[in-house]
């Protein structure tokens, strides 16, 4: 209290040469520097922080002029803090300044800071060109390709700048070794290209092997069928719902179906079938059953009845499946492609028909009506052997059912006719066309046919008249060769006495093969220029702006050179063009063109789009941002603010959580944390480790997306857990899938809530077999409160590595001894106590009552403000009541540093102040900070090319 009083008086009389603090001019500052500051340094500072000795690694001897102090403004801010707190000179020092001397220096530093800030107000600062950080590169590739390929996974870790972020030119460098990795990464990404008839897309895996292309195309089709799988019970239930609510406004078959993600078309078909009087089975039986469902009052009972009704339909339907006999051909295998395909087609054609089983045409007609509504299958995604879905990964998909030979067969007419909308039908048509185009399935199927017929018993085409057709020969699928084979095959079939049906099957086989292979070849020719255009479109997304005409020419020329001079295939040439784009500085660097002269210029709308997206998403701008940039609207403050808020709600804000929060609070790369002794802590599995690292990100994403208060980080009583983390925290949560995260509102009940008691921080700041109140407290004051703590002197007494080896003393007692050490006390009293309140959490953040040595833990401590506080809640109150402003200012400074991609300057202080003011106005909402930043002059401008400032 006495201190504060004196301090106030000191400020009051700190006139010196500075006339008030506002408007101090340069000569006045220089005069004061020479008259007071330099002598002060010499008397009280330089003997420990000078040329000879650099206690705490601090050297003030460089402060030979005002300009030099300005350049070291961050160090001098620390000097200001220490002087104000009267930490320096230390009590042990024999020479102590008078209060007046001290106040004068304090006032001078403040005046200088203000002078500098005003002089350079709005300076965009030196934002260096820089390559994308590994995280940004990964995210950009994810947004370009649609798949999280993580090509930089194996790269060496990016270095961080002074503020702890790895997104600035100050720390991000390039080297030949790294460039080689970039080249390899670019080429690897290009291997994921899928060449479609109408453009380019990407696959989650490389697309070089035939089998990988098969996998890609087949899985997309199977996924489509899975999305459109028909459960009749769903439709019956929807029909019952419609029946109950019929007549209410807005209730139509269409709306009911849409709300339940069912096909309106098929629901209408079923509704009609259920409600059109039918005298004969199976529809009559079905309708009678249906009527009884409608009287069920309970929804669950209705569902059960609908499932029963579905099972009834399936049973009745099963009996009406039309049997199709296979064709048999003398001298040929039943597995011959023309015969198998004929059989598949015949079966597919019967899916909506009934077997003719009775003598009554009326009954047959009724059965046909039933089968038209209820096909025996909607879409067949596996057939023949190994068709059972229970086989999991071992099931065969979409195959034609050949032995040894590759071949696909499409059999989904009922789905297309009864269920799919026109758009959906076009989509599945396109997927099947792409299967043929991408995998060259027809060509390969035909080559397998040649192998099978010529080599495998009974070797129908084993004779010398078929010798011209070798599967290895690429020309076997030319029209001439196909027709020659057709003639020879038909001739032999006739010789063997084949029936007309067989001859027809053979003819159809060759005609279809000819049509399919021709279609592919024509589309291949047409697709060439389309792919080249598509790769240019990718370049625009990668470069975050439209290409200039020269750039278009340049990329086209590269492609043609690869084709014509290096004789690469079309696909390889496109892949290399893409690799060029991904290695180009236009993609993997961020830079803004500088205007000539010294004056700053506003960023273009495209540059702004990138600034926004790399700030909030750590990735490329999306289509909406680019569209606003193209319309030259993005720079308008209201548009900017609206976009910032939109982006904060977007899932890509995970980039901000991992890159900003992760670096600020120091939990990035927790996956590399090896500090836990897994023998002693068997519950610390990789899954738990990953869940720990995920918790603060989930928390932050939620906070940002709902635009909550930034004090939630400290004060919240909720958190997010998945089952493995919940178990670690001893929480009972509703049973969920193992990867599922849920919000826990009463986390405080389990000693959690907000970031402070999150296991990731408690674990990261524990050296293994004991906790570390020192590290934990240091983490709070340094990371959360932004205190600058000098490094420990080299002669630090070590603590035992294992709590069990502490002997008679407890950890708090040991630490108290440590603080008796003069060299340690000055700093440790600033954070030890804060760390001690976490003693209720063990080395992996688990709650505990006893330490590993079996002694009860104590969570009380005397805080730096002299009050005794206890546990997490004591700390929370301390932070939000006593240290509130420091927390706010730290968060503002860190966020602005991250947003700008450079260290802060004194001239940024006005923006920092504005952020704090706006924050108060906006109920501490985090979005307020972001909005203030993206509309600040620093964010919106770029320094002139010849700006002389450092």
């Amino acid at each position, binding site marked *: 209290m006495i201190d504060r009083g004196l301090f106030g008086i000191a400020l009051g009389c700190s006139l010196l040469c500075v006339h008030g603090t506002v408007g101090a001019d340069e000569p006045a500052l220089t005069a004061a520097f020479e008259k007071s500051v330099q002598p002060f340094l010499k008397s009280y500072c330089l003997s420990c922080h000078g040329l000879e000795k650099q206690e705490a690694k601090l050297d003030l001897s460089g402060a030979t002029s005002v300009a030099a102090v300005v350049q070291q403004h961050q160090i001098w801010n620390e000097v200001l803090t220490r002087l104000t707190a009267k930490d320096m000179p230390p009590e042990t020092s024999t020479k102590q300044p008078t209060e007046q001397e001290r106040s004068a220096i304090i006032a001078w530093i403040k005046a200088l800071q203000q002078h500098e800030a005003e002089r350079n107000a709005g300076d965009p600062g030196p934002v260096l060109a820089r390559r994308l950080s590994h995280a940004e590169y990964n995210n950009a590739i994810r947004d370009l390709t649609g798949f999280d390929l993580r090509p930089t996974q194996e790269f060496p870790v990016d270095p961080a700048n002074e503020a702890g972020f790895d997104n600035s030119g100050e720390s991000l460098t390039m080297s030949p070794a790294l460039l080689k990795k970039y080249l390899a990464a670019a080429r690897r990404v290009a291997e994921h290209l899928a060449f479609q008839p109408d453009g380019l897309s990407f696959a989650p895996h490389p697309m070089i092997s035939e089998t990988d292309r098969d996998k890609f195309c087949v899985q997309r089709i199977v996924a489509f069928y899975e999305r459109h799988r028909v459960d009749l019970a769903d439709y019956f239930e929807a029909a019952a719902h419609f029946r109950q609510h019929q007549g209410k406004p807005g209730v139509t078959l269409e709306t009911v179906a849409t709300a339940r993600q069912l096909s309106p078309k098929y629901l209408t078909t079923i509704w009609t079938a259920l409600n059109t009087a039918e005298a004969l089975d199976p529809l009559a039986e079905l309708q009678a059953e249906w009527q009884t469902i409608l009287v069920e009052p309970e929804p669950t009972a209705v569902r059960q009845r609908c499932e029963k009704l579905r099972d009834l339909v399936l049973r009745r339907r099963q009996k009406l499946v039309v049997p199709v006999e296979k064709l048999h051909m003398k001298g040929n295998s039943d597995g011959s492609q023309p015969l198998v395909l004929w059989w598949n087609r015949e079966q597919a054609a019967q899916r909506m028909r009934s077997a003719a089983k009775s003598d009554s045409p009326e009954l047959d007609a009724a059965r046909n009506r039933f089968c038209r509504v209820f096909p025996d299958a909607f879409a067949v995604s596996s057939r023949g052997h190994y068709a059972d879905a229970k086989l999991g990964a071992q099931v065969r998909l979409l195959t034609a059912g050949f032995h040894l030979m590759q071949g696909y067969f499409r059999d989904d007419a009922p789905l297309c006719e009864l269920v799919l909308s026109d758009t959906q039908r076009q989509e599945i048509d396109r997927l099947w066309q792409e299967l043929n185009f991408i995998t060259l399935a027809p060509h390969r199927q035909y080559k397998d046919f040649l192998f099978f017929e010529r080599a495998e018993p009974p070797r129908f085409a084993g004779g010398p008249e078929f010798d011209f057709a070798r599967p290895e020969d690429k020309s076997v699928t030319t029209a001439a060769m196909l027709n020659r084979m057709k003639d020879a095959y038909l001739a032999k079939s006739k010789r063997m006495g084949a029936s007309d049906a067989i001859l027809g099957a053979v003819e159809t086989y060759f005609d279809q093969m000819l049509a399919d292979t021709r279609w592919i070849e024509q589309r291949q020719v047409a697709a060439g220029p389309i792919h080249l255009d598509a790769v240019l479109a990718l370049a625009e997304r990668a470069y975050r702006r439209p290409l200039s005409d020269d750039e278009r020419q340049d990329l086209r020329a590269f492609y043609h050179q*690869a084709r014509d001079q290096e004789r690469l295939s079309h696909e390889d040439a496109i892949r290399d063009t893409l690799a060029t784009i991904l290695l180009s500085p236009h993609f993997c*660097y961020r830079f803004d063109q500088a205007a000539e002269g010294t004056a700053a210029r506003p960023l273009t709308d495209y540059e702004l789009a990138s600034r926004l997206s790399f700030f909030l998403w750590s990735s490329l701008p999306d289509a909406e941002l680019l569209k606003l940039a193209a319309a030259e609207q993005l720079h308008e403050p209201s548009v900017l603010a609206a976009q910032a808020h939109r982006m904060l709600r977007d899932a890509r804000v995970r980039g901000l959580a991992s890159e900003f929060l992760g670096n600020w609070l120091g939990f990035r790369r927790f996956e590399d944390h090896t500090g836990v002794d897994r023998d002693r802590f068997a519950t610390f599995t990789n899954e738990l480790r990953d869940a720990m690292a995920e918790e603060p990100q989930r928390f932050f994403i939620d906070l940002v997306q709902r635009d909550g208060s930034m004090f939630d980080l400290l004060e919240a009583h909720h958190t997010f857990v998945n089952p493995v983390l919940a178990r670690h925290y001893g929480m009972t949560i509703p049973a969920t899938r193992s990867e599922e995260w849920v919000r826990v509102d009463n986390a405080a009940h389990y000693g959690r809530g907000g970031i402070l008691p999150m296991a990731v921080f408690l674990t990261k700041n524990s050296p293994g077999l004991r906790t570390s109140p020192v590290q934990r407290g240091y983490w709070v004051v340094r990371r959360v409160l932004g205190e600058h703590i000098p490094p420990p002197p080299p002669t630090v007494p070590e603590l035992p590595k294992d709590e069990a080896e502490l002997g008679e003393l407890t950890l708090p007692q040991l630490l108290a001894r440590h603080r008796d050490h003069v060299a340690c006390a000055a700093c440790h009293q600033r954070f030890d106590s804060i760390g001690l309140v976490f003693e209720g959490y063990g080395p992996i953040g688990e709650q505990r009552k006893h330490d590993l040595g079996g002694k009860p833990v104590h969570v009380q401590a005397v805080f730096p403000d002299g009050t005794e506080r206890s546990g997490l809640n004591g700390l929370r109150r301390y932070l939000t009541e006593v240290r509130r402003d420091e927390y706010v200012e730290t968060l503002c400074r860190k966020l602005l540093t991250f947003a700008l991609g450079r260290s802060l300057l004194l001239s940024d202080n006005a923006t920092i102040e504005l952020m704090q003011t706006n924050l108060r106005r906006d109920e501490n909402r985090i979005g307020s900070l972001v909005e203030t930043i993206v509309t600040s002059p620093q964010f919106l401008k770029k320094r002139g090319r010849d700006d002389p400032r450092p």
Partner: protein
Amino acid sequence: MSNRRTRISRRTLLQGVGVAMALPWLESLPVWGEATPTNDAVAPKFPQRFAALFMGNGINSQHWWANGAGAEMELSRSLAPLEPVKTKLNVIQGLFNKQATGVGIHPGQTGNILSGAALQKGAVLRGGVSIDQVLGQHWSEDTAVPSLVLGCEQPITGYHETNFSMAYSSHISWLDANSPVPMEVYPSLAFDSLFDNQGSQRATSILDRVKDHAEHVKRQVSRADQAKLNEYFASVRDVERQISRTRTDKDKAEARAENRGRSLASMPRPDNGLPEDLRDHMRLMTDIIAMAFQTDKTRVATLLLCRDLSGLIYPFLDVRTAHHPASHDDESEAYERISRYHVSQLAYLAQRLDAMPEGDRTVLDNSCLMFLSNMWSGSRHDSSKVPLLLVGGLGSTLPTGRTLDFTGQEDGDRKLCSLYLSLAERMNLKLKQFGDADAPLSGL
């Protein structure tokens, strides 16, 4: 010796058809990073090479044996083509691949022959990286093409009745657990893949272009930014230089060799399209490997002479039955001729390499050619042991002229993957583990 007269630029060669090309590789020429010839006292270090030649469906076991050692070695009828190189031959009996047993016949016995991995049935392929690809990566910085993956028979990808994909029958080289390496069947394209349009040249083209981009950008940004972009620019140039170094050295070596009038290996670019006769096809593929090894374009090759469940037909051997059906009568005279024919491909490649001097030895002496099949007996689909031959001393790291029989040893002591570990070790690649083996083959 018309080589010197007909030597023309590669570019022209690539565009032309059937032009003889000469690419020398000479013993006295230092090429590994040195610009001047080494002192004669320093033994030049020559590259080691590895090739695997695969034949599907087994051999005729009645005629697959050898007795004795060195020049006295007695070779069975099927091995007779190796007579001229038998002092450089190791006949290895009794090895096996555990994961290729007990899983049903054919594809499951094949797709892991060079990886030792367990294979997955059904729609999703899963195996393991093959030893040739591991070695190719090991040397990828040193050669234009990390590995050659060639075949004389088209791969097929349907399903076998065991529910293994036929891709396992068709591919012995695997890039990783999920993807077989696409195989080149056309000799002309295999030939092209060795020259300038592949690998390092492609990287150089990309680097050239992005260097231009950086130049362009540098003109538009501030001085401080230029410094950052210079870092990028310098890195690009450095990598370019690294990549071209090997090539330049080789070009120089070529020029010097020509000046000294040494005898040169030569090979015309094969015609486009597929050779009509299988004999020509196999000959061309082995020639390409020989030339690639001699010129150090690559040090690793696999050649699928025929796949498992092969449909190749050998009218010139007076066998009209296709390979796979013929293997069901594996002790027949006809199948012996088929087996011997495949061994003769190995013998041909070995002799070609043996005719290429390198130091005081030959390219064959610095190589290891491995011939193997997936079965011992095609009629019984027996993979409890596999036929295996090694030719070449692998740079004096592998004694030759021996018959080694592991039959009857404990399963753990006769693993194919142990052999691969041993060979990799001799090629300066120390692997703790490969496939199902964590120890080299004792007794090699």
